[in-house]
């Protein structure tokens, strides 16, 4: 294998990793702040992709449609997320782990049928602007030009979230709230409101990631099924609630996928699970997470 093709493979691992990061970032944020593992995250991601398609489709004649539909997808998903939080998720903060998992899993089921009812079973395709239809070459390695946009968005989300977590206390509030919600409230922290907005923000990220995903291939039902498990792996490898961890975890999964495909194509997923299991056994809180009492 020559150096160019290694670099090419690295680049595609990077793009894959970025997409995973975009999906996992919101998941990790929600888990990090609210201690809820959101099974419905990928469904909302998918919904974001469909939203993006709809916006694009409605505004097709304008040249900005393509660009605008991506953030709009984020907002539309955030609205759904906000609704879900206020109506359902709010009721389960105090519940046990399995009940939270069941509720979010049920939401995922309901959402995927909602998607099916709304958009039908036919795949949706967004036609990219001319300038994004050809590959670019970086040191002789081809790269889908759209992925430059993807990587930039990934970076933007990473920086934005880093800022959010660094300059706010949300990360700490959760660790405190896990132990005693009552005490946190007695310190004057309005948990319900914080949770609502963090959840909404997390879902905004999911929808935005969906919008970013939409022009990559085609949008189909069931896309969320595969990615949610991979996103879990990312979060586990990187460490629950750690932004840096999520980023590193995504890149690890992306690159592992990308390179295993060359040597042991059938084994890519197996390897990801082996890595995830190994991390859990050796360092359950992940590469960058902090141990939490259970």
């Amino acid at each position, binding site marked *: 294998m020559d150096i160019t*093709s290694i670099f090419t493979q690295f680049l595609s691992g990077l793009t894959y990793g970025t997409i995973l990061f975009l999906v996992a970032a919101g998941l990790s944020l929600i888990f990090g702040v609210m201690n809820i593992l959101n099974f419905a995250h990928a469904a909302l991601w998918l919904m974001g992709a469909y939203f993006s398609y709809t916006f694009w489709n409605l505004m097709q004649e304008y040249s900005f449609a393509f660009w605008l539909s991506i953030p709009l997808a984020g907002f539309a998903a955030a609205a759904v997320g906000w609704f879900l939080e206020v109506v359902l998720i709010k009721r389960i903060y105090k519940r046990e782990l399995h009940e939270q998992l069941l509720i979010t899993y049920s939401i995922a089921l309901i959402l995927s049928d909602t998607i099916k009812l709304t958009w039908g079973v036919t795949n949706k*395709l967004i036609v990219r602007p001319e300038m994004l239809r*050809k*590959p670019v070459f970086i040191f002789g390695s081809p790269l889908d030009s759209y992925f430059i946009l993807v990587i930039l968005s990934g970076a933007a989300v990473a920086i934005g979230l880093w800022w959010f977590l660094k300059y706010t206390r949300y990360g700490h509030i959760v660790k405190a709230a896990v132990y005693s919600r009552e005490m946190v409230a007695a310190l004057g922290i309005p948990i319900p409101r914080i949770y609502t907005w963090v959840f909404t923000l997390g879902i905004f990220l999911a929808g935005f990631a969906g919008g970013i995903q939409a022009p990559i291939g*085609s949008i189909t039902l069931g896309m969320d099924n595969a990615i949610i498990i991979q996103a879990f792996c990312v979060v586990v490898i990187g460490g629950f609630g750690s932004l840096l961890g999520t980023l590193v975890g995504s890149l690890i999964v992306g690159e592992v996928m990308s390179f295993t495909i060359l040597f042991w194509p059938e084994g890519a997923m197996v390897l990801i699970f082996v890595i995830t299991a190994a991390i859990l056994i050796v360092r359950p809180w992940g590469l960058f997470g902090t141990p939490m009492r259970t």
Partner: protein
Amino acid sequence: AAEPYNLGVALGLTGAGALYSADGVEGIKLAVEEINAKGGLLGQHKIELFIRDSQTKPDVGVREVKDLILRDKIRAVINDYSSAVAMAVKPIAQEYKVLHIASISNSENITMINPSPYTFQVVPNSYMQAKAAAVAIAKMAKQKGWKEFITIASDYEWGRSTQASAVKFLKETSPDLTLKKEFWPRLGETQFTSYITGIMAMKPDFVLGSVASNDNVAWMEQAKNYGFFDKIPYPGSLITVTELMLQAKTLTRGIIALTRAPFFAHMDNPMMADFVKNYRAKYNKYPSDWAVLCYDAVYALKQGVEKAKTIDTEKVKDAMKGMTVDLTRGRLTFRTIDNQLSCSSYTGTIADDPRYPFPIYKDIIEIKGSESERPESEILAARKAK
């Protein structure tokens, strides 16, 4: 009125097969409507449809079919998108003596091994398709002096059996071709970039693809944006009418591809012309391969009943053995040895056509069933080995 004819449909309405199955259901509904409008089977038995979701999972498929048989008292079931489901349903249908018509799933194993007299296949099976692709490719390989190739196939029954047969044929017909590498993306994969760059880096002379439904769309879209098709010939992979319609705007023109039942190849057949007309009137779109195949499945059954002159399943089953039927795809015969319909596969070059809002196949080559079927001797040998 006479007793109705209960017809079950168990297709993967959710999961990976939803896209194709939904079209199939539409084809079936149209056929049933037409038949019922004429009084039903034998002019008196109205067909009643019972539609279930097999979820593209074998054990769910089995449960749903059992339910159809026991509660809805169906006499025949059209099933499934997934070959694995069809294979799981086969013994159940045989046990309860219910006809089982496979109209989308096309693994050869459905009819080759452990054959059931109740199971019929109206779609060209994986062997026939692979052979058709190989014939087309071998010709091109000779012309262009190709030496090395790579395969990419979805990692499940259909992808595997299609890939295996195609590689075998290519080796037989063009011994100097070498298979450089096999790629096996997971069924349901959405990100193909690593495969794309991996393949491009190896610079094969051509790539043979058997990627399934939704994944196929994603794969081709993503590959295109890497300039994949400009660099590497991609002949003989399955690009059905569904993809032609879906990717009308984005599909790379000029690719040589393979499909199972393109309606435009048989517009000269009045039955097909009528079907397309009615289908468009009803659903406001052109029929995909799956709509055609499932429509044919119902008509094959109808003609079986007419030949048996009764709706009694035992008699219909016997009547259909080796029967010749008139379908949208022309006059075709079920092979006696395995109940496989001896139907054609189609290859051609993807190109725009002013008559349709999407590209179709140009220079279609119809590879007849008789040219592509597995020889009976091999089937017998395989059954013996089992």
